[in-house]
């Protein structure tokens, strides 16, 4: 099946989400090409295993709608039937625009898909992963938004062999571009993740989490409740509208375990939860649950590690 993957660039390279989708596409033996949208000057995104096209946009204007128009053109000219992108801000915008152009409703939050005798079918996880929802797509083109960490990334060698198409800017000028500073272990690839919720009681108490994280060489995450409260930047949010993590050990501190949070962490290998409410849903996911006060348990942990 002729397939187009919308690629995204992080740190001058293809994002892990893009490589995961490529991995799946290869395992299904799809006839795949990648069209990457970004604004980096000289990214290293040429691929040894399939064609790569770079749609280069200026980062001083918001012109994703123009990128979508270009991708629509490619889809129509090359008779592409399957269009795949990660559930990221950029791909959600692009796939939504494309769905109107192609008059085909996309499927969001896909965790698995298959192609059999020309038909695409998908699996979504609903109710925080308690159920799997299966869909068959009955339109000429199938558009899928794939959740991060759904598939193993492909192993590729990057080269400089790709075509670059410069996109026009739009009238919507962008200013004050702010890039969050990243330091320490990152959520996506850390073996240990410690996440904080409202049960840390106060922003100041996140120092306890930082101390523990540095002792365990862990990345720090949080719930949407504390991100909304301004305790932590959005880039550290774990869950449906944040990051998906799959560490060896996930330590949930003062987190109730709402389904929207579970979606982002339930595939962690070993889950430790500290919560004073023994009925908290997070305990259903925990391999080791401590019914107790975060502010008493974590300081003792810090003193004894």
């Amino acid at each position: 099946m002729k397939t187009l993957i919308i690629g995204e660039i992080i740190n001058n390279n293809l994002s892990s989400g893009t490589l995961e989708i490529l991995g799946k596409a290869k395992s299904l033996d799809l006839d795949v090409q990648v069209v990457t949208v970004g604004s980096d000057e000289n990214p290293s995104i040429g691929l040894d295993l399939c064609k790569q096209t770079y749609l280069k946009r200026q980062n001083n204007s918001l012109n994703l709608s123009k990128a979508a128009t270009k991708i629509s053109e490619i889809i129509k000219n090359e008779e592409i039937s399957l269009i795949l992108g990660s559930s990221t801000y950029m791909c959600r915008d692009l796939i939504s625009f494309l769905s109107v152009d192609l008059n085909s409703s996309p499927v969001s939050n896909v965790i698995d898909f298959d192609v059999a005798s020309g038909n695409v079918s998908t699996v979504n996880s609903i109710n925080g992963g308690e159920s799997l929802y299966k869909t068959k797509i009955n339109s000429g083109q199938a558009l899928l938004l794939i959740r991060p960490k759904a598939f193993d990334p492909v192993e590729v060698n990057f080269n400089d062999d790709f075509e670059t198409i410069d996109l026009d800017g739009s009238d919507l000028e962008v200013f004050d571009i702010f890039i969050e500073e990243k330091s320490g272990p990152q959520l996506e690839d850390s073996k240990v993740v410690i996440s904080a919720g409202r049960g840390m009681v106060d922003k100041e108490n996140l120092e306890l989490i930082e101390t523990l994280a540095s002792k365990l060489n862990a990345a720090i995450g949080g719930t949407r409740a504390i991100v909304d409260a301004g305790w932590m930047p959005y880039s550290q949010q774990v869950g449906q509208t944040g990051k998906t993590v799959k560490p060896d050990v996930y330590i949930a501190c003062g987190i109730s375990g709402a389904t929207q949070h579970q979606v982002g962490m339930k595939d962690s290998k070993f889950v430790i939860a500290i919560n004073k409410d023994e009925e908290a849903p997070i305990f259903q996911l925990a391999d080791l649950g401590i019914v107790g006060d975060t502010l008493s348990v974590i300081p003792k942990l810090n003193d004894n590690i």
Partner: protein
Amino acid sequence: MKIAVCAKQIPDPANEVTYSNGTIERPEEQVLDDTDRYGIEVALQLKEKFDAEVTIISMGPSGTQKGLQQALQMGADKAVFVDDESLKGANSLMTANVLSELAKSLSADIVIFGTESTDGYSGTVPQQVSRYLDLECISYVKAVEINDNVTLTRQTVEGSEKLNMPEKCVISVTAGGVEPRYPNFKDIMAAKSKPIEQVSISDLTINTTQNLEFIDIETVENSKSGEKIVDEGEAYQEIVNKLKELKVI
């Protein structure tokens, strides 16, 4: 300035979402999706500055209209909705098709959404509506500064960026982007006399089809029968032991 702002009625999120034949079961009484409160708040702030008219647009079983009332209580002027059997289980594109037709019928300059609904969370409708209306889409707005110009801050993967709001556009507002207001008793009473109008689907141009076919829902056993220990002062030791066993320390 005419503003259309989307408000979805959803089953009370305190209860688990249930499905019948692949479609979310909707009780007679549904509530306003909290996600939409952020968009409504932005619309109301714009109204205060620019004397705009704010109309709620909605699609889905109207039932007791509680959710629409809640949207009006916040301070919107009126509501229009489409409720049609043929839209049951509508996919995101059909939904966007209907909502963009509603926005068009109102000659809305600015169309505002939350980023994704709490029950369906496909998270594509605002962008799809912008494409239907051929308007710029400013998605994932997390801060709004209203002076003579309106400056919007967008969330991006790497951080954020700012834009000036054009005269016509579609905006989606993230949760936490603004602080939604709580209606007082007077607002609640005032909402009762605000117009709520049903629009017939036959008055709208609908080109979308149901291209997604429901196959099956399968339940997976998630819950782990892990150990649960009540802390009496020494439970930290269990964690230390476990971390050693897992070779983290």
